[in-house]
Every structure is written in structure tokens, then in C-alpha cells.
């Protein structure tokens, strides 16, 4: 009997010895009202990743993550579901297939194989017709108006959806009740019908990105003229500041027209993302003096001045927009889209097997001037976004600074993140859009800014519950 008592007492001692940490911090909305949350933006907001739009990407978009955290806050100020996004049909990618990692083989050096992003052969996803997934259901409610490819200036373009579809970005269609019934409708009208209580707006990256992706082939100095006035610009131009300001202002005023509060997210420095930093400008490695002598002789023979190859790492030979063939200088960027085999098999950046100079074409190069245009435009756009946040009393999320932090490398919950392509963990296989974990880091930045500005207590996100790059 006594023994049983002792065993019982011991069991009680063990049961009592179970520590716990109370983490309930009373999530609250503070001065904000998250009950009807709307996300406005481009591909980053849509959940685009690995070079395409997939249903997984959409379900793990940063707006979906934010909604999940806003929904933890109790009614009446917490978010109420469902969170409606115009989902595509699957995980292949829409309209084209996404990238996956796969083995690739160098045709010049058959033994040289490596893992690299490849287009996932197979099928592509569809949307339900060309039109709004949510059309006619959920009372036309839509919570994520993230349109891949859209610029701030496109918000005032009549018939933008039709124009974009012709340019292989058939995303905007989905947000109209009947695009054929109102072919000249502007996207800003779609936003005007949604009446959010809280919104986030991350627009403007594409106003500089199109220029950069085209290797600086368009107009970068802010004097571009519309191809269809007043606001439809060529995709490879940087949007002029005046057009940017007035269209951004209009989109913003539409979003807040029914009294919504929200957060404006500024534009990161796109020249620090892997798409522009993965292929090094100083990437021509010569191991023998003979190689350097041969190249020097070739370039001298063609009459180029000031080009000198040495043993070791050399800057690639590039063609700049003025038509000059010259060596790249420090700070200049080679685009990730430059075909690998062109460099390894056809001597791009040095000379080909026939002894002819083969500079990297200017469509794959951002020169010092072009980079400066991008940085200047980004700075000016961000100054305007901050000005708008100030005058409308909205939170201003300095994503530009956060990307700078990321560029120098951060460690979060046991994972090192950097802008290194694939291995950095934050950017997906297209080198431009984040991974799910990258989006979660971004969402946490937005949350901390919102909490500070609206005195709210929105819990941050467990980044590790999401995926990084997936390996075969």
C-alpha cells in the first residue's frame, strides 16, 4: 500500500515538472482595421516564383501570409476570411511552365554536368477561361490584386488587360467581371470596387525592372514617351517620374477612397538581386599566359585600344549601348539570361574559335550609366512613395533597406540567407522573385512596420514552415 502511494507521489512529481512558456501576447489591431484586407501590387504580390505563377506560389504569397496573421486578431478588427485570390489550376505554372532544378550538360565539355534551373517540361496551367476566377462567385470579392508584370503607370491604361495579354502576361483579365464588356476599363476601377479596410500596396518595381531586364535597351533617363498616350509605355523604358507619380497617386487614392488605412512598400534596389549578380562581370579566367597573349593579339589585330588580358580573372568584353566594344568595368552587371553555352562554347566575352572578337551583346549587359539610371529612378520613385505615405498617414515599409540587409547576408531561425542564386535561400530559380521563405521574411518586415505604425500587435511568421529552393 505504501509502495503504491510512493509510486503515485513520484508520478505526480513528474507530471508537475512540465514547464511551459506562455506566448499569448494578445494579438490586436491597434489603430488599424484588418477586417477586409486587400493587397495591391505586381508579381511579387501575386506570389510569382520560379519564373511563373502556380497555385502553391499564390497560396504562399506574402499577402496570404499577412492575411493569416491578421486573422489571428479577434473580430471586429481582425481579418475575416476567406482570402480570395484568383488561383490558377495547378503547380506547373501559368501561362508557361515554371523553372525547376535539373541536370544540365555542357555541349562543349560533355563531362561537365551540373544542376541548374531548367524549364519544367510537361504541361502548363490554365485559368478558368480568360476571366476572373472569382467572377460571379464570392460576390466578386477579391483580396489580392497582384498582377504580374504591372507597372504603376499601367494603372491608368485603358484596356491594360488586353495589352498585357498580347505581351504574354495575361494576368489582369482575371480581375474584371467581363473584360469584353468593358474593354477600356482601367485596373484602378477594379480596385475602386473592392472597398478594403486595410491594404498593402507594393507597386513600382516593374517601372524600372523592364528596362533592366532588357539590358538597358530602352529609355532610362526619365524622358520616355508613351507608345499609346497618355500612359502606355514601352516595356523596356523606365517610367518617367511625372507619369509614375500621377498614376501611383491615383491608384493610392482609389485604395483609400473608402477610408482604408494601409502600408506602402517601397522599391528594392533591383540591381542587387541574383538575376544581375550571378554571372560575374570579372568572370573570364585565363590560366596560361599563352591564352592572354592570343586574345591580346586578336583584339590588337582588330584595332581595339585599351583592352588588355592577363593571367587570372579578367573582365568580360562587352558591347555597350553606344556600340563600343570594350572591357567591362567594376560594378557593371551581366544578366543571368546570357546563354551559358555562348560563353563556354562560343567565346562570348572574349573571342571565338575562329579568332574573332565576340563581346557579350548589350542586351545582356547593364553598364555603369544604365545602372545609374535605374538607381536614380528607384530613389525618385521611393521618395514619392514615402511622401505619399506621409501625407496620407500610411505606414511606409522600407523594403529597399531590408533588401540591402539581405544582400549582406542574414541568419534567421538557423538559416543563412543571402542574395546568392539558389544557395542564398531567399530568391527562387528565376533570380528575381523570392522563394516562399523569402516572401515570409518580407511579410515579417511588413508586419513589424505595421505594428510600429499602427500600434498593433500582429504576430510575426514562422519562416521555417515554408519552403526554400527545392532540389531533385
Amino acid at each position, binding site marked *: 500500500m505504501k509502495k503504491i502511494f510512493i509510486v503515485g507521489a513520484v508520478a505526480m512529481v513528474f507530471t508537475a515538472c*512540465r514547464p511551459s512558456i506562455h506566448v499569448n501576447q494578445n494579438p490586436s489591431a491597434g489603430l488599424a482595421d484588418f477586417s477586409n484586407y486587400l493587397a495591391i501590387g505586381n508579381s511579387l504580390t501575386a506570389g510569382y516564383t520560379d519564373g511563373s505563377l502556380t497555385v502553391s506560389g499564390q497560396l504562399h504569397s506574402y499577402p496570404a501570409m499577412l492575411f493569416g496573421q491578421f486573422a489571428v486578431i479577434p473580430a471586429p478588427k481582425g481579418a475575416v476570411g476567406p482570402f480570395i485570390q484568383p488561383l490558377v489550376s495547378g503547380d506547373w505554372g501559368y501561362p508557361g511552365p515554371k523553372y525547376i532544378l535539373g541536370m544540365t550538360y555542357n555541349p562543349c565539355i560533355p563531362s561537365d554536368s551540373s544542376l541548374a534551373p531548367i524549364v519544367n517540361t510537361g504541361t502548363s496551367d490554365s485559368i478558368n477561361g480568360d476571366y476572373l476566377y472569382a467572377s460571379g462567385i464570392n460576390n466578386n470579392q477579391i483580396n489580392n490584386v497582384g498582377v504580374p508584370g504591372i507597372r504603376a503607370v499601367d494603372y491608368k491604361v485603358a484596356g491594360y488587360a488586353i495589352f498585357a495579354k498580347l505581351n504574354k502576361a495575361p494576368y489582369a483579365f482575371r480581375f474584371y467581371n467581363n473584360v469584353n464588356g468593358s474593354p477600356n476599363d482601367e485596373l484602378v476601377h477594379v480596385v475602386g470596387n473592392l472597398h478594403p479596410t486595410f491594404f498593402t500596396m507594393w507597386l513600382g518595381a516593374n517601372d524600372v525592372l523592364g528596362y533592366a531586364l532588357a539590358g538597358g535597351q530602352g529609355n532610362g533617363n526619365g524622358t520616355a514617351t508613351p507608345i499609346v498616350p497618355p500612359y502606355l509605355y514601352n516595356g523596356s523604358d523606365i517610367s518617367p517620374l511625372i507619369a509614375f507619380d500621377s498614376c501611383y497617386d491615383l491608384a493610392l487614392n482609389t485604395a483609400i477612397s473608402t477610408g482604408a488605412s494601409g502600408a506602402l512598400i517601397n522599391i528594392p534596389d533591383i540591381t542587387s538581386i541574383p538575376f544581375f549578380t550571378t554571372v560575374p562581370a570579372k568572370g573570364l579566367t585565363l590560366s596560361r599566359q599563352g591564352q592572354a597573349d592570343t586574345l591580346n593579339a586578336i583584339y590588337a589585330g582588330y584595332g581595339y585600344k585599351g583592352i588588355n588580358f592577363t593571367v587570372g580573372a579578367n573582365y568580360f568584353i562587352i558591347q555597350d549601348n553606344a556600340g563600343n566594344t570594350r572591357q567591362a568595368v567594376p560594378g557593371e552587371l551581366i544578366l543571368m539570361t546570357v546563354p551559358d553555352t555562348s560563353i563556354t562554347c562560343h567565346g562570348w566575352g572574349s573571342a571565338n574559335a575562329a579568332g574573332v572578337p565576340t563581346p557579350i551583346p548589350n542586351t545582356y549587359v547593364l553598364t555603369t550609366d544604365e545602372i545609374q539610371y535605374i538607381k536614380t529612378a528607384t530613389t525618385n520613385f521611393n521618395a514619392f512613395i514615402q511622401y505619399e505615405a506621409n501625407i496620407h498617414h500610411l505606414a511606409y515599409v522600407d523594403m529597399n533597406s531590408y533588401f540591402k540587409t539581405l544582400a549582406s547576408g542574414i541568419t534567421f531561425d538557423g538559416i543563412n540567407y543571402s542574395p546568392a*542564386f539558389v544557395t542564398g535561400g531567399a530568391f527562387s530559380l528565376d533570380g528575381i522573385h523570392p522563394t516562399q521563405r523569402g516572401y515570409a521574411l518580407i511579410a515579417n518586415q511588413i508586419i513589424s512596420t505595421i505594428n510600429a505604425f499602427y500600434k498593433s500587435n500582429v504576430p510575426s511568421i514562422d519562416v521555417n514552415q515554408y519552403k526554400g529552393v527545392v532540389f*531533385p
Partner: protein
Amino acid sequence: MKKQVLAAAFLLSAVTTFGAGYQLNLQGIRQLAMGGTGVAWPWDASTIFYNPGGLGRMKTIQIYASGLTISPTTAFGNTLANSSAVTQRQTFAPFNFYIGGPIQQDSKFALGLGIYTVAGIGLKWDDQWIGRYIIQSINLNAVCFQPTVAYRVSELISVGAGFVYATGSMDIRQALPVHGQYGPGGSTDDDGTLHLHGSASGLGFNAGVQLKPSDNLQFGFTYRSQINMGVSNGSATFVVPQSLATSFPNTNFDTQLPLPQVATAGVAYRTMEDRLTLQFDLNYTGWNSYDSLRINFSQHTSSLQDMHAPRHYRNTLTPRAGANYKLGKVVSLMAGAAYEPTPVPNGFVSPDLPDADRLVGSVGVSIKPFPRFTILTACEGITTVTRNASYDFGGFSGTYKTEAITLGLGLYYNF
């Protein structure tokens, strides 16, 4: 698209120590019940551990054995992310064995052997918990063999010293942030994993002086040297997606897991017609001898490099107090308490060793049913303060609390 040589960098941060959380102060049952005190008063043959000098005071040869169970649990919470976790319940069973005494009746020389557990616990978090890329589970144990010699210089002074051979093992599991398209285990939800397993051994010594100015007032001073537990040819086993198999080859590793040096001073005072003995010990533990730790792999790739984690530990001063009260010829009661400050400063508090200041309380009973035979029992409760701390190397922070219950049973027999 530019081809890549893919090097999935990861953080091998579960580079660990036999830190305060893994050090057990369970080498004697009566001493355990008295808050871990015992350097001044040679109660029984476990003085081989507590103060080798005390062995010179023993009147006869004694054989001593004890077994314990310890069940530690650590809770974690991240208030920012509203998430929490608790380690799985595990029970560990350290043991001790001593034999020793004068080489012959009334000799001033004494010999002894101690076999005792100095570390023997672990933590096991849920495999999917938020800190899995730092640690999923860890298990460290170390048993010491200590042949000891003591010499009673005079009635006042007795000295002793022992050579210490420590042997043990380490076992660490952590997740790697590489998801498989087809999954290492066939599922896309699986992370990669790393399992480090190895045997460790090291050498040191334990020396002490026991002073007995009177029957009722005694002092003890001891020094236990640092023991560098070297792990050589441990096995590092990776489970990663097939395309990364060459980046993370299964290989061997070497590392060092140091047990810190400890200097102890103590006093014991007997009063109330010899019924009540009070003890007070002070441990000075030299944690700062390892500012950083390394794991060296025998094979390297662009993804797999030697790992290095900083650990700026502080030396600590631990006060302990205990009492033994003789109810009669047969039964004694013991009680004690200690305050163990953590050696781990903020910024270095890793979930593989979520150390914090610890409060220790203990009680025990000894029963002497026959003149030469004694049974000892003890129960110790440990709780840490709730600590909000970060592990900057791993970009990880949260609030921790650890609790542990220890139960011990010991027997000794005097020949």
C-alpha cells in the same frame, strides 16, 4: 540560364559543449540531497569524487553504489511569432560506483576507485520545430574512471589525488534547409538531416585537501582539472536530396567537447550534540577556457566546410548549502539548496543548450538498518529562471525554461 555549381550552404550550429546544462552534480546521494555540498566532510566513499583528500579519513574499506533517474524538460516560446515548443520527455539513468579505504587497519595511506557519471542527459525537440535547423536532438554522456590515492598527513591534514579517465559519446541531429523535390523520404515536406555521432574520451585529474581542526569543524579544498573530451572519427551522416549527395558526402569528423575545470572550497560544521551537520560549498567553474568550438570534417566540399561556432562563456561561482540531521541511530534527514548561475551570456543561448540561472532544491533520507550497511535516497528539483535570450550565430531567439527532477538511490557497505 547560367549554370551553377550548387553549394547549398547551411548552418552547422549545434556545435556543443558539456555546458552547465549537461553537467550533472549527482555523484553522491547524500551530497545530492544536501544541495550538492560535500567537499569538507568525507561522508562515504563518494568523497573520492567530492574530495579525494577525504579518502584518507575513512576507517574501513567501503563499497558504494548508486543509481539515479533524471528527467529534464525544456520549454521554448517565441512571443513575437506566437509559437511555442516543449522537449519530449526523456529519462536518463546516471550511476556511480566507488570502492576505497585504508590499505590496512589504521594506515595513513588509502586507495580507491571511483566510476561516476559527470554528464548524461539530452534534449529532444519535435522534428519539425522552429529551431530544427539548429538542433533536433542532442545526447551527451560521460563517465569518469578515477583511481585515487590519499594520505593522512596528520590529524589536521589529509590529502588525496586521482587520475581521471573520462569516456563518453555525443549524438546530435539537426535538419538541413534543403528540401527534396521527391523528398529524402519520398515527401516534399522533408528537410535534409545531419546526424553526428561519436565517442569521446579525455584525461584529467582530481585533487583535494581535507582539513579537520576539530571533530565538529572541517574544511575542504579541491581542484578538478579541465578534461578535453576529444572526438575523433565520429560519423557524420547526411540525408539530402539525391542531387546534393556529392555535396554532402557521409564522412568523419573530429571535435573537442571540454569539461570545465572546477575549484571548490567548503566548510562543514556539526552541532546540536552531533545531530546536525551544516555544509557550505563554493564552486568556481572555469567555463571561459573555450571561447569557440569547431567540428572538423575529414572530407570537404564546396558545401561542406569545417564548422566553427563562437561560445563566449563566463566563469561562474556557485554557492551551495546543505544540512544533515540525525533523527536517531538509524535514520537521518538531509536537505539543501544551490544557486547555479549560468555561464552562457545573452547572445549565445542556443536551443541545444538553453542554459539559464538554475535554482536547486533537494531532500533525502538515509537509513542504516544494520551497523555496516546504509541506504540513501534523494530527490532533487531544478528549475531555471525563465530566460529570454538570443543565439545570434543562428539568428534565433526566444524564451526558455527548463525543469528537471532527479531521484536517487544509493547503498554502501563497510567491510
